């Protein structure tokens, strides 16, 4: 019996292996005149008006092209990542999707995307900001098109500062003093310092400091930089802040925990983009009038404005697509002025335009939240201009994906605050660990 089973097993094994080895021929060009076919769109707008917008954009496209069917799927970012990494094995990927800049780099690396130069030219190449476009560009092929942008700025509570007679801090030292003065746990924390290994918040915070000193976490030749003077200063700074003004549990906080604390009115300061407004509005409507944004603190007030962290969320078209021409046409349709502005307005002040002309368009600016937070929008727009994704200051790199996904920096912070590892030692260890991981990329 054993023998038979083994033969059966081998048979199945070989069947499966041949089945996987086969590459589908996907060059199924549609006829030149009319679009005909079904495409799948994955996006990560899991809630509210943005989600509805994507559906209505698809509906409008299908109405215009009656033979086209668009299937929309919504996944939160972590699910999204799990799904495409597993799906790429089996060909289970969408035709069009949103992506994060790091995903784009990885996807280009495994040759999963098609260049979208023609789509960009159709929309108008010079209408785009240059930097976001570069994040998905390899050898003049544009593999991604920025859909919207946002940037990290400092959020504070006007009422709390006023009550205490304090100014909006402009330097890191001032921020520390102010946060410490306001700190009154457990009802109010000055500023929470998130270090959870579930995502990259501590990397983000360290990057704020390092960038403000004019340095980067990744050197030009793609090595980790955690041991330069400003990196060590930055680590020390956040450790100090954690000890003085942050809830103890923030050592485990991820992005949602961190934001939630501010949304609930339990922290005086936070860093976020314009998405902060919607969060506060939903959780604590009474606080909306009390929040505002300010530029990122610097080391000295007189330092130049270095760009900090900008997130440009792009759309991509997948190589696996049977109907790339439909996919591209759908992507292009998202940028038609009225629809595009409607899309941006679905998270007012949160999503800023990727097109220069729209940013100044009265139709875009004429929105209650954008007007109410005009100061914040101005500050975020200025920050968007100068910043890049973490680790992409010198152009797209796979290393930036490692630095933000492997929680090495988060664990370094945890080691320091929980296990009292000396800062220099922890930084050296983390730097080495990151560089080892970078080496694995070429395996």
């Amino acid at each position, binding site marked *: 019996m054993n023998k038979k089973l083994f033969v059966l097993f081998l048979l199945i094994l070989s069947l*499966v292996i041949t089945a996987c080895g086969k590459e589908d021929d996907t060059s199924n060009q549609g006829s030149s005149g009319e679009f005909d076919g079904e495409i799948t769109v994955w996006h990560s707008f899991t*809630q509210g008006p943005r989600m509805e917008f994507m559906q209505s954009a698809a509906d409008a496209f299908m109405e215009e092209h009656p033979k086209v069917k668009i299937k929309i799927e919504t996944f939160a970012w972590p699910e999204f990542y*799990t799904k495409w990494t597993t799906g790429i*094995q089996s060909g*289970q990927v969408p035709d069009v999707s949103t992506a994060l800049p790091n995903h784009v780099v990885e996807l280009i690396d495994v040759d999963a995307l098609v260049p979208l130069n023609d789509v960009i030219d159709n929309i108008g190449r010079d209408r785009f900001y240059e930097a976001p476009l570069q994040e998905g560009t390899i050898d003049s092929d544009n593999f991604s098109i920025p859909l919207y942008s946002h940037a990290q700025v400092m959020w504070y509570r006007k009422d709390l500062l006023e009550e205490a007679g304090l100014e909006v801090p402009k330097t890191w030292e001032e921020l520390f003093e102010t946060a410490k003065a306001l700190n009154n746990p457990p009802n109010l924390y000055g500023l929470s310092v998130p270090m959870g290994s579930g995502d990259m918040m501590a990397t983000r915070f360290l990057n704020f400091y390092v960038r403000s000193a004019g340095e980067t976490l990744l050197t030009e030749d793609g090595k980790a930089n955690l041991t330069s003077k400003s990196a060590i200063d930055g680590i020390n700074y956040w450790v100090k802040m954690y000890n003085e003004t942050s809830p103890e549990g923030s050592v485990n906080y991820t992005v949602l925990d961190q934001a939630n604390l501010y949304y*609930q009115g339990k922290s005086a300061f936070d860093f976020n983009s314009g998405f902060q407004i*919607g969060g506060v509005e939903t959780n604590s409507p009474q606080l909306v009038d009390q929040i505002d944004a300010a530029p990122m603190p610097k080391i000295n007030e007189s330092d130049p404005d270095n760009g900090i962290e900008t997130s440009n969320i792009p759309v991509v078209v997948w190589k696996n697509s049977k109907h790339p021409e439909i996919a591209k046409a759908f992507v292009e349709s998202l940028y038609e002025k009225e629809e595009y502005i409607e899309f941006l307005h679905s998270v007012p002040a949160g999503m800023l335009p990727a097109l220069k002309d729209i940013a100044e368009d009265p139709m875009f600016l004429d929105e209650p939240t954008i007007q109410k937070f005009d100061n914040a929008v101005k500050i975020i727009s200025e920050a968007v201009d100068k910043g890049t994704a973490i680790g992409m200051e010198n152009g797209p790199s796979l290393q930036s994906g490692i630095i933000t996904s492997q929680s090495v920096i988060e664990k370094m912070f945890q080691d320091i605050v929980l296990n009292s590892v000396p800062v220099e030692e922890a930084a050296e260890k983390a730097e080495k660990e990151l560089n080892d991981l970078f080496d694995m990329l070429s395996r």
Partner: protein
Amino acid sequence: MVGRNKLSTALTYVYLTILAIVSVFPLIWIALSSIKSSGEMANYPLSFFPKEVTFEYYTRVLNDLSFTVNIKNSLLVSFSATVITIVVSSLGAYGIVRFFPKAGKKMTKVLITTYMFPPILLAVPYSIIIVSIGLVNTWTGLVITYLSFSIPYAIWMLIGFFQTVPIEIEEAAKVDGAGKMRTFLQVALPVVAPGMVATAIYTFINTWNEFLFALLLINSSEKMPISVALYSLTGSEILDWGEMMAASMIVILPSIIFFMIIQNKIAGGLSDGSVK
């Protein structure tokens, strides 16, 4: 012994009461939190009963997040997986007990070893299998993967139940001229019916709770089972404990009710004979 009994019985009740409180507390806390306003959840972490009761989260979860669709999907998937599991496992368990009693002992060990592989690492081979037979993004594909963990356990439980069937009554049926299949269906099955119900419900709950394979194998949201929908809440842009608690309640209530129904039967497989 009788004299000391009062005190020790009282202490036993105290011990059980403490255990019961710890066991039930999370459920009660979920239930209470799911009907509190968000301000109350954040600002009065110690207040037990809600100051004002709101069912807003439930309506949001069921309507806006379309949990009703997910519930329907889960019912369908779990029900199919359970039926197939029970049919295949009853046949298998009966076959082992009646026809290969010696091999049966080894078989139980093999069945146990099948659990030695972490499910997370089965994900890639499974997605390859499911794709190669063209069943990706289908409920059929998901049901097939569910069989991988439900069948070994179900066989294992059912072996125990079938061993309680006295061989004499089957022999009596044989004398009456019943075939093997008929003996199985008309004599053995009725005896183990309660055990089968328990196994079925246990399988149902396990498949109802499963989330990893569902996440990886189902791509369209209208086909997602409820556990994935629940997980998705953690990835949403705004963390809403109220919604999470209401959704948890919806997922967990059927399991708890089922468990209460089967609790008498569930242990049968282990103690009634599989080991003897």
